C-alpha cells in the first residue's frame, strides 16, 4: 500500500502470451539498488500488485513457437531490458532504447519525449511487465534477450550479467577512460563496484571511491585498489582536489542516481525538502558535485537511474568546462556475451559483491536491510525454493 510495502504473495503463473515468449523458472534473482527507487516511491506509475525484480536467471521451461534459439532446459540469464532486436535502435546496438518493447510507449513519450525499452518489473512507464523476483517469469522477445550460460559456472558467478555487471562496465566505457586517467566513482553499491573493477580494463590509473558505508568503501579498496572518500566525514570536492593536485578527476561516474544522500550539504538539503514536498522528483546532488569536481574537458558517465527532472544543475559549469556527459540504461545484449567470456576466462568473478543469499520469502525483510545498508549488506540474492536453514550471509 503506497511506498515501502513489499510482500510475497501467491499469484497466477505466467504463461506464453505471444510467439516470441519464453517462460523461465527462476533459480536466482537479485535486489537492485534501482529497486529501491520503486520501494521508496520515486518512480511514477507503480501500482498495487506489481511484481518487482529485473535481475533474474533460471531454467527455460516453456518456449513460444517463434523462439528458435532456446529450448526447454536451457539455463539462461535474463537481461533487465526487453528488446525486439529489429528496430533502428536495436540494430544500432542501443538495445535499451528499443522502439517496440514498451506497450505503454505514449505514456513514456509524454514524460521523456520518446519511449525507451520495456523493462522487467519497473513500473508501467516501462511497460508494466511482471518482474523476476518470483518463481517463474514470462520473457517477451525471448529470442533476443536471454543469454545461455554454461553449467560449469554457478548462479552466483553469472547472475549479475542480468544488470549490474554490464551496467558497471558500460559506465566505465561511457567514461571514455584513457590510459592513466584518474576515475572517481560516486556510489559503491554493486554498479559502482563493477565500474571500479572494469575501469582498470580501460587503463585507469588512480581510482577514487566515494560513499558513506564503510563496508562498501572497504570492498572498493580490497577489490579494485581504490582510494576512498567517506562523504559523511569529508568534503568530497576538497578531498578530490587534494587527491588530484587541484585538477579534478579526469572521469567521473555517478553510480548513485536520483536518491543521492546529501551529506549535510546545502544543495542536498534543498533537494530533500523539495522531494519530500513533491516539488521535485530527483535528488541530483551527486551529479552537481561531479560537475563541479570533474576536470575541465573531462567526462561524466551516469549509470545511476534518474526518474524525472533535476533541479539546479550547474549547466554553466558543465558548458564552460567543456565536460562531456554520457549516460543511458545499459544496452545489455551488446555487452552480455563479451562479459560472460570474461567470467569464463577467469578475468572476473562477479560473486564478490554478494553479501546475502536468502529464500524468496525473505525478500521484504531484505528490501529493508538493503535500503538501510544493515548487516553489512551490499547485494542480496533471492533464491526461490531455498529453505531458511540454507540462508547464507
Amino acid at each position: 500500500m503506497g511506498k515501502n510495502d513489499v510482500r510475497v504473495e501467491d499469484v497466477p503463473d505466467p504463461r506464453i502470451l505471444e510467439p516470441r515468449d519464453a517462460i523461465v523458472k527462476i533459480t536466482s534473482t537479485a535486489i537492485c539498488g534501482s529497486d529501491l527507487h520503486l520501494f521508496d516511491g520515486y518512480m511514477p506509475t507503480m501500482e498495487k500488485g506489481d511484481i518487482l525484480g529485473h535481475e533474474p536467471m533460471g531454467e527455460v521451461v516453456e518456449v513460444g513457437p517463434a523462439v528458435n534459439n532456446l529450448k526447454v532446459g536451457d539455463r539462461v540469464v535474463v537481461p533487465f531490458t526487453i528488446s525486439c532486436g529489429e528496430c533502428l535502435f536495436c540494430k544500432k546496438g542501443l538495445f535499451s532504447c528499443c522502439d517496440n518493447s514498451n506497450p505503454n510507449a505514449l505514456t513514456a513519450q509524454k514524460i521523456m519525449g520518446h519511449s525507451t525499452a520495456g523493462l522487467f518489473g519497473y513500473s508501467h512507464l516501462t511497460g508494466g511487465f511482471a518482474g523476476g523476483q518470483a518463481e517463474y517469469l514470462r520473457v517477451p522477445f525471448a529470442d533476443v534477450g536471454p543469454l545461455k550460460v554454461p553449467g560449469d559456472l554457478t548462479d552466483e558467478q553469472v547472475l549479475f550479467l542480468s544488470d549490474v555487471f554490464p551496467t558497471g562496465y558500460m559506465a566505465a566505457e561511457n567514461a571514455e577512460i584513457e590510459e592513466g586517467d584518474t576515475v572517481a566513482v560516486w556510489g559503491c553499491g554493486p554498479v559502482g563496484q563493477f565500474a571500479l573493477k572494469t575501469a582498470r580494463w580501460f587503463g585507469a590509473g588512480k581510482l577514487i571511491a566515494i560513499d558513506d558505508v564503510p563496508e562498501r568503501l572497504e570492498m572498493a579498496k580490497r577489490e579494485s585498489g581504490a582510494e576512498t572518500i567517506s562523504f559523511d566525514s569529508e568534503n568530497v570536492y576538497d578531498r578530490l582536489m587534494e587527491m588530484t593536485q587541484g585538477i579534478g578527476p579526469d572521469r567521473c561516474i555517478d553510480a548513485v542516481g536520483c536518491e543521492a544522500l546529501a551529506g549535510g550539504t546545502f544543495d542536498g538539503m534543498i533537494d530533500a525538502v523539495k522531494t519530500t514536498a513533491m516539488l521535485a522528483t530527483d535528488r541530483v546532488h551527486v551529479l552537481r558535485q561531479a560537475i563541479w569536481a570533474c576536470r575541465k574537458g573531462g567526462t561524466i558517465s551516469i549509470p545511476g537511474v534518474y526518474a524525472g527532472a533535476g533541479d539546479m544543475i550547474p549547466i554553466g559549469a558543465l558548458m564552460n568546462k567543456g565536460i562531456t556527459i554520457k549516460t543511458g540504461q545499459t544496452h545489455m545484449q551488446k555487452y552480455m556475451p563479451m562479459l560472460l567470456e570474461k567470467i569464463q576466462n577467469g578475468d572476473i568473478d562477479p560473486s564478490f559483491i554478494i553479501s546475502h543469499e536468502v529464500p524468496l520469502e525473505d525478500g521484504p525483510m531484505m528490501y529493508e536491510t538493503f535500503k538501510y545498508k544493515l548487516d553489512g549488506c551490499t547485494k542480496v540474492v533471492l533464491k526461490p525454493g531455498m529453505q531458511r536453514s540454507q540462508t547464507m550471509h
Partner: protein
Amino acid sequence: MQREPGGASKATLDSVEGKMPSGETRAQIRSSADYVELKYRNPANLVAGKFASGLALFSLGLGLAEALMPGKMARMIGVNEDQSGTIRALGLREIGHGISIMMSQKPTPQLWARVGGDAIDLAYLGYAATNDNANKTRLAIAAAAVLGATAMDLAGARMLGSQDWTMDKVNPKAPTNVGQPSARQPVM
C-alpha cells in the same frame, strides 16, 4: 521441470492491500487464463469505451436527422414546422457531441456535456408544450425518450469517470502485458 498448469507461483509485490477476503465476490472466470487483468485493457474499460462509442453514434445519427430533416423531426416530436431552425440548431449540437466523443480516448467530459445537452432538450420540450398548437402526446413521448437518453448518458459518464485511464494508446508492435500475473488476480 514442469510447472503445474494454472498453478500459483510466489512473487514479491509492491503495495498489496492485504490478503483477499475469502468471501469476496468476483466475476465468474473459468481459469486464471481467462482473467484478463490489466488496467488499460481490462473488460470494464472495454465496456465503458464501447458504451461511449454507442452513444457517440446515436448522437451523430440523431444530430444528422435533426440537421437534415428538421421539418420532419419537428412534426415527429409534436411541434410546428416553424421550429425547424431550432431543431436544426439542436441537431448541430448533437453532431458536435458525437464527434467530440469519438475524438477522445476517454470522453468523460464529453458525456457530461451530453447530459447538459439533454437538459437543454428537455427545457425546449417544456417550452414547446406551452404552445397550444403543440401535440402534447408526441411531446410527452419525446420527453420520455430524452429522459431515457439522459439516463444512458449519466451511466456512461459515471462509468468512464470511475475508470482509471492514464494511458491513451498502446504501441501495437510491443509485447502484450495483458494477462500477466499480479496480486490483483485471484489464484485459481
